[in-house]
């Protein structure tokens, strides 16, 4: 799949660690999202369970997206255009929690992520802009 060719600068690109579902993101990830959408249905879940690779091939995802799904590499799926609400279909299929997924994306264990949330969550301080981080 070609990268979107029009890529103007957006104000939100300055926010660290955040993947806004804009048009470019949806262009990258549409097929991946729609494949994962199939997991909403029992027959889709059965087909995915029977052969994950064949299921993904049938939905025309890219090779990189295919590998990210097979690896359950949540951050990579996000970087390849996946939207979190579609990734959560896969998390539900795997019976893993949102905290498991978010922990992996942010580089900590599920338990560490849960503890961070119980402690009030991740502070916005130092996280508002890439410039602020440097």
């Amino acid at each position, binding site marked *: 799949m070609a990268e979107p060719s029009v890529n103007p600068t957006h*104000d*939100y690109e300055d*926010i*660290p*660690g*955040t*993947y*806004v*579902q*804009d*048009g470019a*993101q*949806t262009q990258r990830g*549409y097929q991946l*999202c*729609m494949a994962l*959408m199939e*997991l*909403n*249905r029992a027959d889709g*879940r059965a087909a995915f369970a029977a052969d994950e690779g064949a299921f993904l091939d049938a939905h025309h995802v890219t090779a990189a997206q295919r590998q990210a799904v097979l690896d359950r590499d949540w*951050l990579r799926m*996000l970087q390849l255009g996946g*939207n*979190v*609400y*579609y990734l*959560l*279909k896969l998390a*539900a*299929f795997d019976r893993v929690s*949102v*905290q498991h*997924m*978010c*922990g992996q*994306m*942010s*580089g900590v264990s599920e338990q560490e*992520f849960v503890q*961070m*949330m*119980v402690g*009030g*969550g*991740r*502070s*916005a301080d130092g*996280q*508002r*802009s890439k410039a602020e981080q440097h």
Partner: protein
Amino acid sequence: MATIIGGIGCTHVPAIGAAIDNGRTQEPYWKPLFDGYPPAREWLAAARPDVAIVVYNDHATALSLRLVPTFLLGVADRFSPADEGYGPRRVPMLHGHPDLAWHLNESLVLDEFDLAIANELDVDHGLTVPLSITVGEPDEWPFRVVPLAVNVIQYPPPTGRRCLALGRAIRRAVESYPEDLKVVVYGTGGMSHQLQGERAGLINRQFDMAFLRTMIDDPDAQAAVPHIDYLREAGSEGIELVMWLVMRGALGGPVREVYRHYHVPASNTGAGLIVLEPTTAGAAA
């Protein structure tokens, strides 16, 4: 004449629904959250609305990236709880109010809000969790429901100003409906949360408190806040808060704050609950 008797702002975290459905509300993790719900439930039970207009968003359930309506009005006579991967929540079927919904559609489109229409719509946790939070676990929902789904997933969602204006137009539409109905409006979603990326887990209590204060006292000022501020300060999913501005607009001029509760965390979210009453009758503001 139909009248809007109140507004509710309410988080719609799916784990809150799961805690209710699995009988875990008194566990130490959940108890402080659920201890905050009775006053809102008591207000709603005493108010006895006939209809709730619930402003919510679908989470890749009945809708997907295939078709993305910015505003989608549910005109059906019933709405089923959706299967989100764990089977449908075992909550009652929701009964719609097609006559009011079609009136809203006609009034709002002629008022220049170009809605999409859903004659069939399964509703996910975005709609059912706020009802569970504010009603509990009834055998039947005590009022009819008109769903209004807002796109907050494909960027950009409608602006705060557009949401506030839509709310005000909903007020005009409700007040031009001839039948004597009592209507509450829910704005759902938020508050601060981010479910994705290296910044996942962001919570901003200060932003959430400022949002509540300004949304209540000076809704035009809150409506002028650009999306970038929500994304930066309240997290990528915190932008759902624009839906609360639809509710606020529907209440017209000054409002009375009946109740407020806020707790961190509900799963990964700053969980807010607020009950507001209009102080002016008629289509003020």
